[in-house]
């Protein structure tokens, strides 16, 4: 039990609790806030794993942009809580059963099959340096250049798509 393990366990608890809170909150705004908390803990995990760049991106993009967008939409639509509906009553119990089965199976697989002594993370000090960041950037822009460009095009397409979706409404009003 070293200090890092303690940090990990505490954060894992917070992370799982906030995930559960997200799923079970009545109010969608609280759900969103729980999810933000979860994302922040995941970002801290990234830091522990020696990936500061991804950690910061996670906070900027997920917490800073995506979740704010969610909050906007929830607030604008007034969709904090929906009236209950009675369709598919058999689904909920089945869902619980299946997901718990999934969790048990996954954990069983992870802790029996994948366990080996070499699979231990040891946050490398070198990973946290400026050089490693530069190395990663070089890889991103050489080996992964094509995916990078495709991603940028995808973002552009998404942007255009959203504008088109919103524009239709305005044209109708005119």
């Amino acid at each position: 039990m070293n200090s890092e393990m303690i940090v990990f366990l505490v954060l894992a608890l917070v992370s799982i609790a906030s995930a559960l809170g997200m799923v079970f909150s009545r109010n969608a705004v609280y759900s969103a806030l729980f999810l933000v908390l979860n994302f922040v803990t995941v970002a801290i995990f990234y830091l522990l794993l020696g990936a500061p760049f991804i950690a910061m991106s996670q906070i900027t993009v997920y917490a800073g942009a995506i979740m704010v967008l969610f909050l906007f939409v929830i607030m604008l639509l007034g969709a904090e809580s929906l009236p209950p509906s009675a369709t598919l009553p058999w689904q909920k119990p089945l869902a619980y059963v299946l997901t718990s089965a999934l969790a048990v199976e996954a954990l069983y697989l992870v802790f029996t099959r994948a366990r080996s002594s070499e699979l231990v993370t040891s946050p490398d000090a070198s990973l946290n340096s400026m050089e490693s960041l530069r190395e990663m950037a070089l890889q991103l822009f050489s080996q992964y250049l094509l995916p990078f460009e495709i991603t940028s095009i995808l973002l552009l397409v998404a942007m255009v798509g959203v504008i088109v979706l919103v524009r239709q409404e305005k044209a109708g009003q005119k």
Partner: protein
Amino acid sequence: MDWTFWLEWVIKGFVLCLILLTGFAYLTLYERRALARMQIRIGPNRAGYQGLLQPIADAVKLIFKEELTPSHVYKVVFFLAPILTVVPSLVIAAVIPLGTQFEIAGRTITLYVADVNVGILYLSSIASIAVYGIVLAGWSSNNKYAMMGGIRSSAQMISYELSLGLCFVIAIIMGNSMSLIDIVNAQKDMWFAVIQPVGALAFLIVVLAEVNRAPFDMPEAEQELTAGYHSEYSGMKFALFFMAEYQKMIVVSMITATLFFGGYREFWFLKDTFFSVDYFWWLGPIYLFLKVIALLFLMIWIRATWPRIRYDRLMAFGWKILLPLSLALAFITASGILLAQELSSPLLIWVIPVFSIIVFLVTVALINRDLRRKSYGRI
């Protein structure tokens, strides 16, 4: 890691918070006095010599004020929102270097809390977190005006964050690092504000919008929103919002100084002289302090001079002008540096300011033409 390390850490963090909190208090006084001077008034001068105790008086007043919590609010979030606003404005200062380092009792003490290799990303992520306090305050108040204020403000902050990121990119390219310390040291020969004056200007505009200062103080537009997202707040909670705003001002001034005006470093032409921070470490914080004071004065001056911008124009300015402009600036900076490197002639670096200023003038001309063409329309 022995306990002294933790002790040093705690002390540095504590001191930083103390600086910001005191700075906030006296910034209010500074602003009131400066504004008064510009409006040919005197300003607060009763409490203490020249009103120096005025902040303390204000604090006492706010602490003892009755706190009202309206019955229709979402209590938890209502309580959480001011905290969520203040915390980022404090935390963001952690990566800003205040000076070089000095030795005391055999220990090298660095004048910053943390040197993160992704320092600038840290700044931008904390800046993006800062939206939450405002939007949640607006929503939890369960009040149309507050909600509008919150949403406006966060939309504004998200919009300007893109330009902010691009301005960061300019600084990253020029400093060849994401660490703020490296960026400051890269300005030893020349401030980035000289090489990329338009970038510095764009950054100033963007941070004004990011901290909701005049002329971009939409969320608090009294005439339209009855004070916006903090309409329902009072007492200490209101004071927290107030505090956050002024701390943000201080912090963004520090960031601007660090990224474009040489941070804690002296003027570039003083670099190897007696006035260099390489000779006396204690000059660093002083230089930074002077730069921050100057930038704060600029902000106050702007508030005293310019009227508020209409909301749709504000957004249009951010998306249609500032974003393309900063994109062009990032491109010009990168190309200029590449050119200078490829042809290995340092003089070519001056291509950057020349082209930037040309782009800037073109932008101004475009805005001017547009405004004249439809003088009351959108820009």
